[in-house]
């Protein structure tokens, strides 16, 4: 099963997220991650959906999404020609013994420390999901107090755009 990333342009109106996520639930498709945000045009939002499935499931998801009245554009983003990013905020236990190791990891992963207290420190990391996974794995031994990830956002390289016609 491959992972697919969909770019979806929807009308920016109440309930649209329910309609899109509800379609996945009731048709029995699983979502790995879903992010939604404004676009350059106030009338539209952009949803990025990642899911695992085979070609058949991908086609069915595309067809079902296209049937939703509020969905204006749907495309499978070609992962090789797409910039895919995810943001992580992670809070780790801060102690004299581990501080230096954590700082080294932060530096190597090009992460950033965004909050610091005598007992905790919070890092921010942007990158592809695999990089985020690796960073979390590395920090586990030092004691993760809490973390949150945004799920992926994705945009095609070059002039290709996902625009409503």
């Amino acid at each position, binding site marked *: 099963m491959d992972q697919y990333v969909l770019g979806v342009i929807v009308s920016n109106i*109440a*309930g649209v997220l*329910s*309609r899109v996520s*509800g379609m996945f639930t*009731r048709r029995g498709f699983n979502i790995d991650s879903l992010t939604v945000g404004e676009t350059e045009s106030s009338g539209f939002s952009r949803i990025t959906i990642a899911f695992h499935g085979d070609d*058949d499931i991908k*086609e*069915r998801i595309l*067809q*079902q999404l*296209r*049937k*939703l*009245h*509020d969905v204006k554009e749907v495309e499978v983003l070609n992962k090789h020609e797409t910039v895919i990013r995810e943001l992580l905020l992670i809070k780790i236990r801060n102690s004299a013994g581990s501080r230096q190791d954590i700082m080294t990891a932060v530096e190597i992963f090009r992460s950033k420390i965004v909050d610091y207290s005598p007992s905790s420190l919070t890092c921010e990391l942007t990158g592809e999901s695999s990089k985020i996974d690796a960073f979390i794995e590395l920090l586990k031994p030092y004691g993760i107090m809490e973390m949150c990830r945004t799920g992926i956002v994705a945009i095609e390289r070059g002039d290709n755009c996902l625009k409503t016609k």
Partner: protein
Amino acid sequence: MKISGAKIVVETLIEQGCDTVFGYPGGQVINLFDELWLCRDRINHVLAAHEQGASHAADGYARATGKVGVVIATSGPGATNIVTGIATAFLDSVPMVAITGNVPCDLIGRDSFQEVDIVGITMPVTKHNFIVKDVAELADTLRTAFRIAKSGRPGPVLVDIPKDVQVALCEFTPNAQPVIPYPLTFAHEDKLAQAAELINSCERPYIYFGGGVISGKASAEVIALADKIDSPVGCSLMGLSAVPSDNPRFLGMQGMHGHYASSIAEDEADLVITLGARFSDRATGNKQRFAKNFKLIHIDIDGAELHKNIPANLAIQGDIRDALERLTAMVEEKKHPEWSARIEELKAEEIRRTENALSSTAEKDCGNCAAPCDKSGIPAKDRLNPYTIIDIISSHADENTVVATDVGQHQMWAAQRYPLKKPRTFLTSGGLGTMGYGMGAAIGAAVATGRRTLLFTGDGSFGMNLNELATAVSQKLPLVVVIMNNGVLGMVRQWQTLFFNKHYSNTTLDRKTDFVKLAEAFGAKGTRVSTAEELEKAAAEAFSYNGTFVIDCVVDCDEFVLPMLPPGGSVDNIITEIK
């Protein structure tokens, strides 16, 4: 001039060509009903006994005419009561606009009296739905609702209108015309060319169609293609009435309780051309086995149906009528004498098997059954069997008579046996299988056509919405309600007999309902019949009676719907006789 939101609703309905709405008043739609009263010479409101009945009536109205059916209900329980009707319409692709009132905007989300999130509730069973919070958007939202309901593959749309929006004032300019549907998708030329190639090179073609042929108005085109390529034709439950059942190419419905000839013919075909059908599990049986022996061309207006249930060798999205016209022009005229001979053989075999099955039940003793079907003292040969009932009743109807059914054994018997001649004359809940659908649907059809309408129901299904007799009587509708009364929930009982060691759990209706008195209590007329002779007499009376007439027919509780593909089975396991 500014008018109220409630008036905008009524004016927009009239503008959209809506002559009749079905509904039930309530606290949050009083304003709307006030406008309906004021406009009662321009738009007819049919008051149902229950909102569910109103929703099925709107559905029946839509199925019988092809127009958009409209149902109006109040907030809360009024709204939840139409959910089954909306889901029924959704599963069978029926154009419907459901209008619900809701509590004023500032009370939404506070669990106010009779408040539910009907938009949230109906999201998965509508093509789309709206809540209108600004009266300035009301007219256009309703227009869009009509447009969505009747575009492409039709379906229900719900518009929820809070009370304050009905009260608020706004400028309104009526449109000169009803909205036109969104542009249709048309089949790609090269795909049709590929289809033509497959058809030209096949030896045993078979055309299988569904309800899409009715909503796509493609009946004549199906026959034209079948004639040109010399193909037999069969259909799903939803496809019934699209092609006259006496057309020699027509083998009938297929699927779980489909005709023997159509089910076997499809399996023996080398190419199946499927038109406007979705391969529901009830139509296919075991999906792995279903399309094993043939190549499949699938044409549907809804791209999401292609490859959804059964992968096709060639899938074409597009309007059925247009696709068929172009495809028929492309294919070569063919004759398949061997295949035609085989079809004739199958038809003869079907007649033989049906007769065997009928005579075996006729001779059967009732045994120790607890069902109060009251056939003691009636000689076996005089007992009513379901096919006899349908034959007698249909002989009194004409080709324009709309036939509604409920859900269960009687539905399948009617689907198998009733001689249908014209599209939109057979109304049945195919996808959702809604027991209790029939009374509402028959009322909607009778109101829409102004003609005598027929309902086949069972004592189980009828029990679910028989309160709509009140509606039929108050509307002075000439309905003929035929109850196949076997004292049991026959379809479930059939499964219990075959697959659950005759554990008749909760399917024996130990009820003492007297349907004749019940009909009379509602102001209708009723009679109970046990023999063909009695039924003949009752039918003659019912079809000349100026009002609603209930015929309570005594039927053996162990009549089976045959043939049957066992659940998850296939044509390999077709049951045509119960020993």
